[in-house]
């Protein structure tokens, strides 16, 4: 199986974020990490390769710093990486991000990469669109399934297809049979993540990393179809009372509220 994993670098979960002066984006002097569901997508790709042989390729779109995500993926066992590199990729909407990725994998040195499976995380922790994977499937003309918790090759049917387990709302699930090639968006928790080994980290340095500039995919990318006009700090819907002081005092105050205001105790 030849698997592509689309990964993204996002601000660290507990990083304090500040808006830029124009209020249109965050200031980029924060720590970054791999988008969590993407880490599970990579892990799943590595497990599928261990079971069925093949190749795992990772791709990201973003500035130079985003290469860290690819390096980590190579250290964990991905075979090669594609970096759509440049600040120009940062502000793209999901439609154009998907078009840029599609252009980069279909026109790889004049030939289609022909992946059997393409994985993305189910959504990113920054934009939270939950769209790029599904859009990529439509652009490439492939079937897709979202929020996947399990992937099995259907050996019984011998039709080369897969059976995936979709997560639905409120604790419901569904198995879906589908042909390959296909695009799947992967849910966090589908597997247990591995750590990179020292040998892996060493080997990563010698693995191929292809750089793609915006100029190379420009013809596929158009103007954004949706525009972020302004970001702002959310308005509080509640009058939050902050309880302050040393822990023992805070505990007393809180119990007083639970007793006299909320009447829980």
């Amino acid at each position, binding site marked *: 199986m030849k698997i592509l994993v689309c990964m993204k670098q996002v601000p660290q979960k507990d990083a304090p974020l500040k*808006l830029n002066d124009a209020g249109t984006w965050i200031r980029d002097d924060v720590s970054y990490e791999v988008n969590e569901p993407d880490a599970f997508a990579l892990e799943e790709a590595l497990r599928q390769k261990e079971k069925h042989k093949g190749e795992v390729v990772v791709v990201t779109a973003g500035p130079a710093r985003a290469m860290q995500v690819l390096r980590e993926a190579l250290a964990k066992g991905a075979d090669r990486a594609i970096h759509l590199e440049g600040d120009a990729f940062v502000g793209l909407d*999901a439609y154009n991000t998907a078009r840029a990725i599609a252009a980069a994998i279909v026109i790889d040195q004049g030939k289609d990469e022909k992946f059997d499976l393409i994985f993305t995380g189910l959504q990113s922790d920054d*934009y939270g669109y939950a769209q790029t994977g599904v859009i990529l499937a439509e652009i490439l003309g492939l079937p897709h399934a979202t929020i996947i918790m399990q992937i099995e090759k259907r050996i019984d049917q011998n039709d080369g297809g897969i059976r995936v387990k979709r997560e*639905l709302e409120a604790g419901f699930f569904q*198995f879906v049979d589908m042909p390959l090639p296909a695009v799947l968006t992967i849910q966090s928790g589908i597997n247990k993540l591995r750590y990179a080994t020292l040998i892996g980290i060493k080997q990563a340095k010698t693995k191929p990393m292809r750089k793609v500039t915006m100029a190379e995919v420009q013809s596929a990318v158009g103007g954004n179809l949706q525009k*972020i006009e302004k970001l702002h700090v959310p308005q509080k819907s509640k009058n*939050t009372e902050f309880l302050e002081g040393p*822990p023992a005092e*805070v*505990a007393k105050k809180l119990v007083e509220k639970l007793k006299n205001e909320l009447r829980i105790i």
Partner: protein
Amino acid sequence: MDTILVVVEQREGKLNRVSWETIAAGQAIAAQTGWTLEAAVVGSGVAAIASEIAGKKVAKVYDVESARLEPYTPDAFAYALREFLGKHPAKLVLMPHTYQVRDFVPKLATAMQTTAITDAIGYRYEGGKLLFTRQMFQGKFVADVSFAGSGPYFVTFQNGSFRADKVEAGATAAPVETVTIDVPDSVVRNKPQEVFKEAKQAVDLTQAEIIVSVGRGIKEQKNIELAKQLADALGGELAASRPICDNGWLPMDRQIGSSGQTVAPKLYLALGISGAIQHIVGMKGARSVVAINKDSEAPIFEIADYAVVGNLFDIVPPLIEEIKKAKG
């Protein structure tokens, strides 16, 4: 005059109640813009749902039918709606942000060379321009987002963004038109099996009056015990955000959020939970929320009645003691 189309959601022939919220959104936008509001239900043998919707204040209801629409597949739904919108154009198409909708809407929008603003929580109409608000960075910021291009513009609304009880009834029943779509065999590539529940729910958190819920801030599995003691002291149930259940620290049936249970207790005490959107949708119906988190900017504080910025490991032990004292 432009048209707003609300596509309600049905599953196995039953209306998903969250659709009423989307109709309320459509009615509000129609009142402000002066645009015409129509609704559609997409499925196989779903005329009864179309009639139910027709009792509300909408200009028209379409019953979009094809045998291939049952069971749900993204291929058939995207195909049918694209065909439908080709014959009955709409400027703005609204849907609830459900797992089903987010499975097919990006495909549909892409096929129509347009885009979807997903998981919106509200809108504004300013100087003839529609802006939709959506949360970003896990709820730390809210963005005003506008559409470019000629549409149709797709928008999905998060659960609870509009009030279902605000839906206005119509003076007379709206006309219902059945539109049959021929979805060719070759379009549908996925074969979905029966929907099922993993294990029987051992605990029904929806009935709990007090819930103590833990998030990443609990750090290690052994610390769950501390939260358990707090829950016991309060006489409440223990619950968790998704990462805790993913780690296997608590069983999946104690998960609160879009993929877990939706609860509305008298007290929701959030320990080390940052408050990502997927979690908030499962607990924002709580009558009161107490949040303890070391990050003063954690989004959970935006919906908290009482907030404690600090280390939960410092605060919870004396809190347990104080509760025990208060209960005598």
